């Protein structure tokens, strides 16, 4: 069937018509032949039966009068009946009375018969017909015919041969007709296909198929042509659209270029802005640093001021006592008791002086150390708890004037670090300043707790206070720069951002605002022991 699918329309048409024709002819011939065969067989049977009955009729008197010669004479008539191989007349005992056989017939047949009823049966290639010889219900014998039935198929074969010849003639004639007529069907289709192929190759959609007839294929031509017209029109439209598209594209390109230029310009501007911003930010960071340092300096100055004032007082005691003793000496009124009093007073003053100067010196040393740390970015080894105590010592002054208590909850074990102490001190100062600035009103009582804890390879530093807590609106962006609720009260909004950057970038740690905390604010920092 697949082979058939690829045949040309012409071949398909011819094959289809011929197949149907031949099939029809063969079917017709088969029916005719079968019918003819049956008819011939029946005819032969009927004719032979009639003949045998006739002979049986004639045989009544010969049998009646035992006239064998008469019977022979009657049987002679059989010669003229075609197809009868032999005819035998039996008497009423079933014995042969007279018989006849064609000269070329040598078949043995039964010598006796027992039944005297009319019957016929096919044995081999013979039709055996028995007709009783009777008159007025009296049976005198029987006539048996052996009829050659091979003539029927023979006749059918010759009939079939004639039919076949007829069919052949019909097929040849039909073939000629088909060859002539198929052009009316296939030619327009083939032409259309050819035109379609030419158009497909040349892409010349102005070509039109030349219609041949006004049948369905003719309509196909019309449709094909109208399709071509549409394609042509569409082609034109597409060309126009392409031209427009090209124009737009050029325009678009120009616009894009302009836009790119503009973006470039803007980018440069933005870059400049960003640079400026970064500068500003670093300036701000510096100023924040300075502000922290300034606070530190103020605290330290205040701290140092007290022992220095005491020292000055002690020194003025020295001056007064020395003047008193000098005056007494000049007046020679210096008594032993006065000198003893002088020495005692001087000693006390000296003790106070030395003690307070030592204290001042210690403060200065600490300040120096911290300020050096804050301004330097060196990594060194230190013990965290001890270092935190030193930092806090510089901050005590600020706490002094506030009803806020600073509680230290340090880990019992020492926390050796190899990190940036300056960064840590700046963070601690920032966090404490923030707590005081944002967590509590000026005269509000409260507690700030500074906790340290070992945790794996890091230390946890936790700042918590009992203050107002963090405004939920800014909780999630509290570490972003310029976030402050005290812009007009001296806050820069950089404190926590600097803290965040220091922890993340310098210390390689992390800081989070513990929002689950209900009271005040709680910041948890995790800083690795070693950077």
């Amino acid at each position: 069937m697949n082979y058939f699918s690829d045949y040309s329309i012409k071949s398909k048409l011819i094959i289809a018509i011929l197949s149907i024709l031949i099939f029809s002819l063969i079917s017709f011939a088969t029916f005719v032949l079968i019918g003819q065969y049956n008819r011939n067989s029946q005819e032969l049977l009927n004719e032979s039966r009639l003949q045998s009955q006739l002979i049986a009729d004639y045989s009544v008197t010969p049998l009646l009068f035992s006239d064998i010669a008469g019977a022979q004479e009657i049987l002679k008539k059989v010669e003229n009946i075609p197809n009868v191989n032999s005819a035998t007349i039996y008497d009423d005992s079933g014995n042969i009375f007279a018989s006849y056989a064609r000269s070329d017939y040598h078949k043995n047949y039964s010598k006796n018969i027992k039944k005297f009823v009319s019957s016929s049966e096919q044995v081999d290639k013979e039709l055996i017909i028995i007709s009783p010889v009777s008159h007025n219900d009296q049976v005198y014998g029987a006539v048996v015919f052996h009829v050659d039935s091979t003539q029927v198929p023979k006749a059918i074969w010759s009939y079939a041969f004639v039919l076949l010849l007829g069919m052949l003639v019909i097929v040849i004639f039909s073939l000629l007709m088909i060859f002539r007529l198929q052009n009316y069907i296939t030619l327009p289709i083939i032409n259309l296909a050819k035109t379609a192929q030419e158009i497909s190759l040349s892409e010349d959609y102005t070509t039109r198929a030349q219609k041949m007839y006004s049948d369905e294929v003719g309509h196909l031509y019309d449709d094909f042509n109208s399709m071509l017209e549409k394609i042509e029109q569409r082609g034109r439209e597409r060309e126009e659209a392409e031209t427009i598209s090209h124009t737009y594209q050029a325009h678009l390109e120009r616009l894009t270029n302009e836009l790119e230029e503009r973006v470039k310009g803007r980018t440069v501007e933005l870059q400049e802005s960003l640079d400026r911003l970064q500068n500003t930010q670093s300036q701000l960071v510096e100023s924040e640093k300075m502000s922290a340092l300034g606070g530190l300096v103020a605290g330290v100055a205040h701290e140092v001021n007290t022992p220095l004032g005491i020292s000055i007082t002690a020194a003025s005691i020295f001056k007064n006592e020395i003047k008193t003793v000098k005056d007494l000496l000049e007046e020679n009124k210096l008594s032993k008791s006065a000198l003893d009093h002088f020495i005692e007073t001087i000693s006390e003053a000296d003790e106070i002086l030395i003690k307070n100067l030592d204290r001042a010196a210690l403060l200065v040393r600490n300040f120096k150390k911290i300020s050096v740390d804050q301004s330097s970015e060196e990594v060194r080894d230190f013990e965290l708890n001890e270092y935190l105590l030193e930092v806090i010592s510089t901050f005590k002054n600020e706490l002094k004037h506030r009803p806020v208590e600073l509680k230290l909850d340090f880990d019992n074990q020492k926390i050796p670090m190899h990190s940036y102490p300056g960064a840590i001190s700046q963070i601690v100062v920032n966090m404490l300043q923030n707590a005081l600035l944002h967590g509590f009103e000026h005269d509000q009582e409260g507690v700030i707790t500074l906790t340290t804890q070992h945790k794996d390879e890091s230390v946890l530093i936790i700042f918590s206070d009992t203050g107002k807590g963090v405004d939920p609106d800014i909780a999630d962006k509290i570490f972003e720069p310029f976030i402050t609720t005290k812009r007009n009260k001296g806050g820069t909004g950089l404190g926590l951002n600097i803290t965040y950057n220091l922890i993340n970038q310098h210390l390689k740690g992390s800081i989070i605002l513990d929002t689950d905390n209900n009271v005040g604010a709680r910041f948890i920092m995790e800083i690795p022991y070693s950077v």
Partner: protein
Amino acid sequence: MSKFIFLFIFLFSINVFAVSETQIKAVFLEKFTHLIEWPKDNNEDFLVCILQDGEFSKALKDIYASKTFKNKKVSILDIKDKNKIPNCQLLFIGKETEEIDKVISRIQDRAILTVSDDNTKTTHLVMINMFLQKNRFKYVINNKAAQKSKIKISHLLLRSAQEVIK
């Protein structure tokens, strides 16, 4: 039937040893009745009358002593007076009979089948005239006479007759 054939063979064998023609004719006389129809009658027996032929009468009596003709018991009657023919179905007219034409004309309207075995004198007078010719049994039928007597002779018989007078 077989018994007749048997007899026939027997008779022919007799013929070989000089079987009489009369005996053959006597056998075949009965055969004719197979193919002949009489108008209805009330006779219980089938009456065969023999006119002036003692030999034939004897042969018939020998063969058909206790046999039937047309399913009827056979009675064989010798007619002495040819002018007084009784109501028999079959009348065999012997060769010696004088004035056969007169006898025939007297009974021509009665349903009596007239048979003779003289092929010269009686041929055209009796209904069936049987004879042997070249050792073959033959007969001539006067169907005209039969029709006149309302006796129906089968076409089979007519067909095999040597001559049929219509």
